[in-house]
């Protein structure tokens, strides 16, 4: 079913047939597939992803060892993306078809078109090679995280900016805005108190989903910047055909992704009393 026998990879080139059979028996790949799958499923619900075929360590331990770096990268990226997207998005909506709006839309189109890994390479080229402000390799300090977080955050900022603008434009055209103006509120109150609070609601949802996507995007960014996070661990698993590691990584990220979406849903109902159920 799956090309590539992990037993052959572990055994190496000089292995005899008996060696390979012994390894297959040890890691359980000699048993029928449905049995292997049920076994694995039973262990996953107890948060046991088995042991890595290459390092022999438990996959769960390996994941948690690396997850901190990836999470801080994603959170920093999210922060950068929000700081860039929200102000520009709001100003674009308030002053539609102005110079700032076109600038914002241009930035957003460019941000969506430039893939984050290429942006990462360009940032390295500009700020690590030409002007050596940041390190070219390595990890361990905040300085190592800045460029990858910018690379990760800009693409997300582009999406958030568009959404913020669209959502604000929609809110500003609603009737309560007219009412607020009619009862004599200042433009500032109307725009930045009434419309902004409603306009930012959908942004919260999308920002949460974006955070989940950053966990995926981090795979490539970690590779570009040689950061030893979850993404590189996962890729190492892929390159080495370390199936427990791949499966553990996928299930873990999918779980984290769903957890973030769940938390966002809760946050959303806190922010928006209208959708609170029972």
């Amino acid at each position, binding site marked *: 079913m*799956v*090309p*590539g026998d992990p037993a052959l990879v572990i055994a190496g080139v000089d292995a005899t047939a008996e060696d390979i059979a012994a390894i297959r028996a040890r890691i359980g790949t000699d048993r029928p597939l449905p049995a292997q799958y049920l076994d694995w499923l039973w262990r996953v619900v107890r948060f046991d992803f088995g042991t890595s075929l290459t390092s022999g360590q438990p996959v769960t331990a390996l994941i948690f060892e690396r997850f901190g770096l990836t999470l801080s990268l994603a959170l920093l990226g999210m922060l950068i993306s929000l700081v860039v997207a929200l102000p520009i998005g709001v100003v674009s909506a308030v002053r539609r078809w102005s110079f700032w709006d076109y600038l914002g839309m241009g930035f957003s*189109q*460019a941000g*969506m*078109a*430039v*893939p984050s*890994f*290429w942006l990462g*390479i*360009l940032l*390295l*080229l500009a700020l*690590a*090679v*030409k002007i050596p402000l940041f390190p*070219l390799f390595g990890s361990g300090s905040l300085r190592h995280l800045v460029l990858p977080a910018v690379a990760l955050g800009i693409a997300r900022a582009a999406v958030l900016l568009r959404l913020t603008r669209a959502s604000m434009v929609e809110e500003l055209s609603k009737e309560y805005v007219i009412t607020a103006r009619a009862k004599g509120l200042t433009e500032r109150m109307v725009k930045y108190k009434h419309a902004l609070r409603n306009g930012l609601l959908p942004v919260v949802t999308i920002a949460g989903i974006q955070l*989940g*996507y950053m*966990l*995926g*995007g981090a*795979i*490539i960014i970690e*590779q*570009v910047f040689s950061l030893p996070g979850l993404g590189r661990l*996962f*890729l190492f698993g*892929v*390159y080495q*055909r370390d199936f427990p590691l*791949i499966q553990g*990584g*996928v299930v873990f*990220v*999918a779980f984290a*992704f*769903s957890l973030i979406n769940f938390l966002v849903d809760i946050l959303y109902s806190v922010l928006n009393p209208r959708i609170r159920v029972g």
Partner: protein
Amino acid sequence: MIRRPAARRLYYAALLFLAILGAAAIAAPLVAPYSPTEQHLDRRLAPPSRTHLLGTDNLGRDLLSRTIYGSRSALLVGIVSVAISALLGSLVGLVAALSSPSLDNLLMLVMDSLLSFPTVLLAITVVSFLGYGLVQVMIAVGVIYAPTFARLVRAETLALKNEGYVEASQALGTPQVLVVFRHILPNLLGKVVVQCSITFALTVVIEASLSYLGLGAQPPTPSWGLMLKDARDYLVQAPWMALYPGLALAFTVLCFNILGDSLSERLNPKL
């Protein structure tokens, strides 16, 4: 119709760029000055010059030729993957909307579960099981983006099902298949085309990303992602290697996004 002239000019510029790109991809052997895989080992890491307009890479291969040939990988993966996801997704969406509620629930559950993974992660996982290569990337990406089409087509079909002309046609005894082909599909087409354009852009990025990670195009196949992977290792010695494949990639994505935006504005004048 697009009201702002600037937007219309952008739309035509995007179309023009994509047409040139498509032509360059088809006629690559005619327009590329060198073979994309021919190594000039005496001219390794040469900066842009008259003989090599964009310079050479670590194996002395001409970067202009490789960038031109790289468009083939990008466009081929885009066309095939978008075709797979549009056909597969539309079929699932149509069946879900027109069949029994239990089948609808089952199909949408499968589609939604695909959407609960970050795209890149899912693509890497599928490719790691199918094996590395462009064909595998096409299949993986095609399946991954199918749910977007399924949800779109399902929602649109559910709305169209209650339109007067569809009900009238059904009342006249038109077979279900004919109703779908005559009344539902033509009305879906616009939105599906817009989604195709947006998905194309995403697909091109995924192809480059997977090739960058060594899971997509395999050397010596020229691919923008693979070229950027080589460039990363020679940033200090040959910064020009990192520039042009990325520019080609970014412009392609940009043009497909502009195309999608303009088309959706044309087909949905209310926005």
